[in-house]
């Protein structure tokens, strides 16, 4: 096997076009990645706040609050939740976004992005307990009450949410641990509503929305100062709540019967679609990968189908009659060189692209270093598997042009169609589930959140499969092709 590998490596490096092509794969990936993103004019968008997990978040809403020390509980009834949506830039109509939120919240402080736990009635998703932007729990039970009583109880770091239909019988919704939370929290009522999704005929659009919630009297218990009325309460809009429908603004009123709050904004993680248009996913800098992958497909194909064309395959198999090993050596060669090319390309283009985008004022979705590592390694794996696919299918089909055509149609084309919005979201997602192009999922960086309504399409950076599952689909194709190649290579005369 070592000799077979040595021979294949010598073959590879002694046709000068091949190492050069490998270099070209790296360069193409880097240049396309930088061109595709650098061409847009720079803006000076403010960076979004970051949540406790380092993720970009929306943290703008209407908040009526007071400071509360130590343990205790806060209880309130939501009497109504209504909303308005900007049907056109000048016309506002009644309507409630499905993830409009009204309820009670305890928050570490008034800084955007600070930790919180909240219990809320939503526009269309019943009562939810949410905390720290990414966490979301639905209240048990199927029929949400339109006017539920909500209660948050603090005991140390632990916040527990309860819901009740009558103010007497309480059901636990969920708990949140605000580890290391200060003794003094900001607690109170809030209203937020993200932009409302509208079917525009050409797709989903998002229109500014606002919501108004009427609350009953607030009850404070335990170590928290009891007392009704406006004593100690302040309010207003916290953070950036985005756009409002025309003629609507944030605000609150206080009466003996309770508070009424109006507002827009959201308390949620930012997503990559049109809903928030919050920034650029760093995987955009890897968009040139398809070009590098194309090169690897061709290089892989040349080592098998190319040898059939020249007749060299007979010399190769005479030199090593153990055909499985010959196939393995060729696959290894393309796997290793492909992995090297892919990781180098990604490791070069990512930091340059991110640096360039930041310096020209773009907002990048922050990603963890583990995610960056996955992008680099994943791109290497994509290149490697592409090379192996070329080797395997080239051995099966024995014709270079046919092999490359099949692989382009199976791997590169579905990806380009899906991420370029050339296809509707439905077919695009099926392509990225079923074809080898599913492997590109390894390059996605943005998690999908059920509690945020957005257009989670491939064009926005959302793949139907998780990163490693998508790569597994691609690897499944490669393994199948290798198996077929092995069986045919052993059986066939050359």
């Amino acid at each position: 096997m070592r000799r077979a590998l040595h021979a294949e490596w010598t073959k590879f490096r002694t046709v000068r076009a091949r190492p050069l092509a490998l270099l070209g794969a790296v360069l193409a990936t880097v240049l396309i990645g930088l061109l595709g993103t650098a061409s847009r004019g720079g803006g000076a968008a403010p960076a979004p706040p970051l949540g406790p997990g380092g993720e970009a978040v929306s943290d703008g809403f209407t908040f009526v609050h007071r400071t509360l020390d130590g343990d205790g509980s806060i209880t309130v009834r939501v009497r109504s939740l209504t909303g308005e949506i900007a049907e056109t830039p000048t016309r506002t109509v009644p309507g409630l976004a499905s993830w409009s939120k009204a309820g009670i919240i305890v928050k570490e402080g008034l800084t955007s992005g600070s930790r919180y736990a909240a219990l809320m009635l939503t526009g269309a998703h019943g009562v939810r307990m949410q905390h720290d932007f990414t966490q979301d729990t639905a209240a048990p039970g199927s029929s949400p009450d339109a006017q539920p009583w909500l209660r948050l109880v603090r005991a140390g770091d632990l916040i527990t949410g309860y819901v009740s239909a009558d103010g007497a019988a309480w059901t636990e919704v969920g708990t949140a641990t605000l580890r290391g939370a200060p003794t003094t929290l900001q607690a109170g009522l809030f209203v937020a509503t993200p932009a409302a999704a509208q079917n525009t005929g050409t797709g989903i659009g998002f229109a500014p929305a606002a919501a108004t919630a009427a609350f009953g009297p607030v009850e404070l218990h335990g170590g928290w100062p009891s007392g009704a009325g406006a004593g100690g309460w302040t309010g207003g809009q916290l953070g950036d709540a985005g756009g409002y429908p025309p003629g609507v603004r944030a605000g609150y009123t206080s009466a003996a019967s309770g508070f009424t709050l109006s507002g827009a904004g959201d308390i949620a993680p930012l997503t990559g679609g049109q809903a928030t248009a919050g920034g650029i996913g760093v995987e955009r800098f890897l968009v040139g990968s398809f070009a590098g992958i194309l090169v690897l497909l061709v290089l892989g194909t040349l080592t098998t189908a190319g040898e059939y064309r020249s007749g060299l395959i007979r010399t190769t198999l005479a030199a090593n009659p153990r055909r499985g090993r010959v196939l393995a050596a060729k696959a290894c060669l393309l796997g290793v060189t492909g992995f090297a090319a892919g990781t180098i390309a990604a490791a070069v283009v990512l930091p340059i692209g991110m640096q360039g985008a930041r310096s020209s004022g773009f907002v990048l979705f922050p990603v963890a270093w583990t995610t960056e590592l996955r992008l680099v390694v994943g791109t290497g794996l994509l290149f490697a598997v592409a090379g192996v696919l070329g080797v395997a299918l080239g051995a099966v089909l024995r014709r270079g042009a046919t092999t490359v055509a099949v692989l382009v149609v199976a791997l590169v084309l579905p990806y380009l169609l899906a991420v370029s919005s050339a296809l509707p979201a439905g077919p695009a997602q099926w392509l990225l589930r079923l074809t080898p192009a599913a492997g590109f999922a390894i390059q996605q960086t943005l998690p999908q959140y059920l509690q945020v309504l957005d257009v989670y399409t491939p064009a926005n950076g959302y793949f139907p499969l998780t990163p490693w599952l998508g790569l597994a689909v691609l690897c499944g194709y490669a393994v199948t092709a290798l198996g077929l190649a092995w069986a045919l290579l052993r059986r066939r005369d050359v």
Partner: protein
Amino acid sequence: MEYDTGAMIEVIGLRKRFGTTIALDGMTFTVRPGRVTGFVGPNGAGKSTTMRAVLGLDAPDAGRALIGGEPYRSLRDPLTRVGALLDAGALQPSRTARNHLLWLAHSQGIPAARVDDVLAQVGLADAAKRRAGGFSLGMRQRLGIAAALLGDPPALMLDEPFNGLDPDGIVWMRGFLASLAAQGRAVLVSSHLMNELQDTADHLVVIGRGRVVADASVRELLAAASGRRVVLRTGAPAQAAELLARAGVETSATGPDTVTVTGTEAERVVALLVAAGVPFSEVRADRVSLEEAYWALTRDAVQYRGTVTQAARDEEEAR
């Protein structure tokens, strides 16, 4: 250098069918060390298929081929056991001659220095760093020979090595093949042209339609085909004919001053004529060319000393 049974190539009852075409029909012969064995037959007779089967490239439907007693596919570093030239054009054109041999050397664990040795041996030292794609057919043949020699194998199998060689190249190739055999190697050389092998091969395996028609030394084959005829040129044909007839030799007048003598050797004819004082200007064995022998083999019912195979006899009987 001495080789023995390790150098033998044995082909045992190979059968191979491509669709409805029978390519090999019980091909059986042995290539022995120390001599050049010509492997001859018309195009399509199964020469290349046999060689591919020996190299494990084509799987026979029945029968086996052994190199020194082992099937090719079980050989470790097979190029050190048998070197083969199948298709001189089977090259990656943009790879240099030296690099073409280098990857082959690496595939067998052969040191790179050996590459330069064989390049010099086939006269390609100056062209080592040129792209093989720019080589003439003759140079490619030399490169193919170099590849076959790379592992210094005791057995060699060369398919049509004379193809594309210029006259100088043909002379060189003949001498080269002879020297390889003289080193004790088993050398199998195929050709569809008999006269290419006439002065090269010591032994011939003649095949037709996938089977061996004759497996004999060149001398035997020629003798059998020529039927021991001697041509005598003399000013006294009648006197000579009478003398030879008395000695029990068949004669016939084939010209005003030529007599064709059948059934004895030229030496005996000369001895008889000299003893009787009959004048003559020429006595020569009527040598048929190998080409003619081949024609005779496949065309006529030629039978000689058990070296004609059963297959050939079957064919004769069928006629």
